[in-house]
C-alpha cells in the first residue's frame, strides 16, 4: 500500500511530527513553494491535535492576533472544512467564575476585541440548557472553535495539494548531524535528508532537542474528554464554563473536558493508549451542572490525549543557533487553536530565520537554562512512582 522505498528521499524541509503544529507549518511552507515532508509515527493528528476541545480563543498569546485574523479564512485557504465557528459564550455559576470569564473578556478587549456582559435571562436566551444556577456570563465577539480532527486532516490534505508529502507510520528515531548542521532525519523506514528540520513532535520534542544538546524541559500529562449524543443546535456552539472547556459540535454533540490531569512518562516514541479513568464521571457531573437542561443527555464516548507542558506553560517556538538549521516547536499543551498562526511563524523561521509578525522572544529555550534536571519532581509534575503491578495485573 505504502511506497516506503520511494519516499525515502528527503526534502528541503523535513518536519518531525504530523500533529497540528507540524502540519500547519508544512502547509505554510508548501504554500510558500518550499519542498516539504512531514513524518508521523502513526496517522496525522492522531494524538492530542485531533482529540482536543477545539477552542480558538487565545488572544493573550503572541500568536493571538494572527490566530484571530486567520481562523475565519481557514476553510477557504485550505479548501477543506474545519468546522470553524466564531464567538464564545462564557457561563458563570459563581462570582469567582464570573470574574474569570470577565478577565478573559477584558484581555480580549485590551487587544481591541468587543465583548458583552450577559445576565441570566440573556444567557438563557442564547443557551437554553443553562439553569437557574448560572449567575451570568460573557459574550465574546471574538474567538471561536473548530473540529480538531477535521482540521488536522484539512491541513494534511491541503499540504499534499500543494505538492508537500506526508509519510505516516514512520517513527523518527534520530537526527544525523554533520558539520554543525542536521543533515537528515533517521526513521524506522529509512533516512530522510533535509536542509532544514522542524521538530514538532509533541511530548517527544524534548527527546529530539536533547539529541542536539539542547535542554527543553517538558512534562507529558494525560487529559480526558467526554462527548454526548447530539442535542438541538444552539445559536453559539462555543459555550463553556464551570471549569470545562469544549463546545457543541455542528452535529449537536456536547464535547467537553477539564479537571485534574495526570503527569506521566511517555514510553519512548511509542503510540500511547488513549485510556480513560473514572474521571469521566466527574466530567459528567461538571457538564450537568453547567447545563442542567441537558442533564438527561447521554454520554456516548470518552477519550484521553497526551499533552506536554513546559515549566511555565508557554510554548517554545525557536530556530536554534547551533545547529542553525533546526526549528523547535512545542505549544505546551495549547496548540490547536493557535495552529494557523504558529504554522506561519515556523514557516517564517525556516525561511527568514525570524518571525515577522510576532515577537517570539519570550518563547525562547534560553529561559530554561537554569531549570534543574529534576524540575518535575520539584514541581510535583513527576509521574506517580510505578506501582503499576498492583492495578495492571500480576497475581499480587
Amino acid at each position, binding site marked *: 500500500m505504502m511506497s516506503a522505498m520511494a519516499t525515502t528521499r528527503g526534502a528541503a524541509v523535513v518536519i518531525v511530527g504530523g500533529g497540528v503544529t507540524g502540519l500547519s507549518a508544512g502547509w505554510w511552507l508548501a504554500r510558500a513553494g518550499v519542498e516539504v515532508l512531514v513524518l508521523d509515527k502513526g496517522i496525522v493528528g492522531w494524538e492530542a491535535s485531533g482529540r482536543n476541545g477545539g477552542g480558538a480563543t487565545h488572544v493573550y498569546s503572541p500568536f493571538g492576533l494572527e490566530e484571530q485574523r486567520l481562523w475565519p479564512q481557514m476553510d477557504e485557504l485550505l479548501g477543506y472544512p474545519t468546522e470553524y465557528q466564531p464567538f464564545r459564550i462564557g457561563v458563570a455559576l459563581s462570582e469567582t467564575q464570573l470574574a474569570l470569564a470577565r478577565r478573559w473578556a477584558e484581555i480580549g478587549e485590551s487587544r481591541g476585541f468587543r465583548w458583552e456582559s450577559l445576565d441570566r435571562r440573556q444567557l438563557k436566551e442564547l443557551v437554553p440548557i443553562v439553569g437557574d444556577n448560572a449567575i451570568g456570563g460573557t459574550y465574546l465577539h471574538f474567538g471561536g472553535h473548530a473540529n480538531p480532527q477535521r482540521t488536522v486532516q484539512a491541513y494534511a490534505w491541503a499540504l499534499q495539494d500543494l505538492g508537500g508529502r506526508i509519510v505516516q507510520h514512520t517513527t523518527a528515531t534520530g537526527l544525523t548531524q554533520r558539520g554543525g548542521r542536521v543533515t537528515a532525519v533517521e526513521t524506522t523506514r529509512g533516512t530522510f535528508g533535509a536542509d532544514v528540520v522542524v521538530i514538532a513532535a509533541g511530548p517527544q520534542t524534548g527527546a529530539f532537542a536533547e539529541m542536539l544538546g539542547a535542554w527543553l524541559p517538558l512534562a507529558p500529562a494525560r487529559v480526558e474528554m467526554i462527548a454526548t449524543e447530539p442535542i438541538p443546535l444552539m445559536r453559539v456552539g462555543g459555550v463553556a464554563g464551570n471549569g470545562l472547556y469544549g463546545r457543541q459540535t455542528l452535529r449537536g454533540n456536547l464535547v467537553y473536558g477539564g479537571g485534574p490531569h495526570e503527569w506521566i512518562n511517555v514510553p519512548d516514541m511509542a503510540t500511547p493508549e488513549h485510556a480513560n479513568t473514572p474521571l469521566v464521571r466527574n466530567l459528567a457531573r461538571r457538564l*450537568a451542572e453547567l447545563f442542567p437542561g441537558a442533564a438527561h443527555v447521554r454520554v456516548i464516548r470518552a477519550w484521553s490525549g497526551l499533552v506536554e507542558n513546559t515549566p511555565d506553560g508557554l510554548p517554545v517556538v525557536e530556530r536554534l543557533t547551533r545547529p542553525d538549521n533546526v526549528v523547535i516547536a512545542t505549544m505546551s499543551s495549547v496548540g490547536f487553536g493557535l495552529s494557523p498562526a504558529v504554522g506561519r511563524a515556523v514557516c517564517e523561521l525556516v525561511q527568514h530565520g525570524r518571525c515577522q509578525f510576532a515577537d517570539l522572544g519570550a518563547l525562547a529555550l534560553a529561559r530554561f537554562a537554569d531549570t534543574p534536571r529534576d524540575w518535575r519532581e520539584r514541581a510535583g509534575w513527576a509521574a506517580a512512582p510505578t506501582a503499576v503491578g498492583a492495578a495492571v495485573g500480576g497475581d499480587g
Partner: protein
Amino acid sequence: MRGTDPRSIAGKAPTPERHVALVVVGAGVTGIAAAIEAARAGIEVMLIDEHPIDNDMMAMDAPLCFGQRIDPSVRNRALMLERVVETNPGLASAYEAGVDVQLGTYVWGAFVNGPTVQELPAPMLGLADDRRSWLVGYDRLIVAAGARDVLLGFPGWERAGTLGAGGAAALLVRYRALAARRLVVLGSGALGLQTAALALEHGVEVAGVVEVGARVRGHAATATALAERGVSFYTAHTIHEARGRTGEIESVVLVAVDGTGKPIRGGLKEIACDAVCWAIGLVPSVELLHLVGARLRFVSSLGGWVPEVDARMRTSVPTVFAAGDCAGFHDGRLATPDVAHAQGRWAGLAAAESLGARARSETQHEVPVVSPAPDTGPHAYWQAWLDSLIAAGGWEVNVCQCEEVTRRELVETKPPRYLKWDSPQMNARRLATLLRDGPVNQDQIKRLTRAGMGPCQSRRCREQVGLLLAQAAGTTLDRIPLPTFRPPIRPLPLNVLWPADEPAAMRDTWVSWFGIPTQFSPHWTAGMAVDEPTAHARLILSDE
C-alpha cells in the same frame, strides 16, 4: 525535594464503593457456571448482568438490536425482573451458592493502570443502573459478556422493525415483550433457524426465512420441521427494500438473486410483515476485554475479534479471564451450551485458584477451549449478503443510521452532509487517496465520515462499515486494526454517570486546564498571572 501539584489527579483517584475478589460480568450459562464454581471454592463473587434492560436503553438498540419492537410492558421493572429470574434458573442456583447477584446493572467501563494511567488504587469497573453509577474494584475479572447482533443495511431499514437475532431472542424469551406479530428472518444458518423456531414457539408468525445462498445453511431436519409448520424458505433471495407508512415496516420486498448475488429481473416478491430479523451471525462482545487491555486477534471462524486465552481461559492480562461466546464461537457453538458451561466452570476455577483457592480435581480433565474451525468464518457469508444488498439496493443506502451516512459517502470518505461542504479539493478526495498515505483505518474514517459516531455507539453499523471498507480498500477484515471501543460502553445520561460521592479535593482544586498561572498570561504584561480560581459552584440537580 519533591513538590506537589494540587491540580493533578495525585491523591484524588476514586476509591471504589466496594471491592470484590472476583467479579463475573454476564449471567448467561457461562457466567453463572463461573460464579458458582468460584463461590464453591470459597471465593467472594459478584455476578453482574444488565438484564432487565430499561426501556430507554432498549430504544437505542443497546446492548442488542431490539428494532423498536418493544412492548410497553418492559417499563414495568418489577415484572421484567421477575421474568429475567424466571427464565434463567441458574440465577437461583447462583444465589444459593452465595454469589452476590446484581441484576439490571450495566458495566459501562473498566479502568486499569497502564502506560498512561498510574494513579488507580486497583483495577475497577464502572457500573450503573437506571439511576446512578458507581465503581467496584476487583482482584480477578471474568468476562462472560456473550455476543452482540450483526446488522446490514437495506432501503428502509431505519424504520421500526429491524431487529437482530439477539434482540429478538431476548424480547421473545426473557421479556415476553416482542411487539411484532409477523417476522421475516434473514439468514438460514443455525442462528436463523433457531430464531424462526423461537418465534413460532412464542406465538409469532414467521413470514419467511430468507437466504442469499442457493441452499439452506442450517440442519436440514430443523429446516424441514419449520417448513412443516408453514414457514416459507426463500433461498437465493435478498432484501430489496422494506416498506410501510412513515417510520414503520409493514412489508418487505424480496428479490431473487443469481449465484453472485445480482438481482434477477422480475424476481420481486412483497411479503407482509412487521419485523425483519437479521440472523446471519453474532459477534463476540469484546468491549470490556478491549478496555482492560487484553490482547485481541481477528479470527473469522471464531466470529471476529476474540481475546487470546490460554487453556484455562486466562487472557493476556493475568487478572482477567474470558469465557463463553465473548471468547469466540462457531456457528454451531450456539447449540452447545455444555461448552459454554464448561468454559465458565473452567474460568471460575482458574480464577479461584489464582486467588489461592484449592483446586478441585474433578474438573482438571476438561479442555473446553474452542479452536478455530477449519471452515471459513461468517465474514465471507456476511460479505455475500452485503454484495447482494448493494446489487439490489445500491450505494445510496444508509450504512450508519444514527449519523445518516450512506455506503457511498463512507467509501468516498465524504464529510457529513450537514456541513454542506463543497470544494473541488474535497471532491477529489476519496478512500483511494487516503490509502496512498497508509492502510485503511476504521477509526480514522469514522472521524471523517461520522459513520459509527452516533448514540448507538456503532452497534448497528460496525461490521458493515468494516466489510465495506475492507472491500473498497481491496483488503480483508483481519488486516484492518480493531476499531476501538470507548467508555461508557453503554450510553448513559450525564445525571446517571455522574458521581454523587465526589470528594471535596476533586471539587476544590478543579481547573479546566492545568492551572499553570503563567500559561494564559497576556504576553504583553509579562509575569502577570491569570490564575484560574477553584472555588465551589453550587450543585443543581436535574430534578430540583
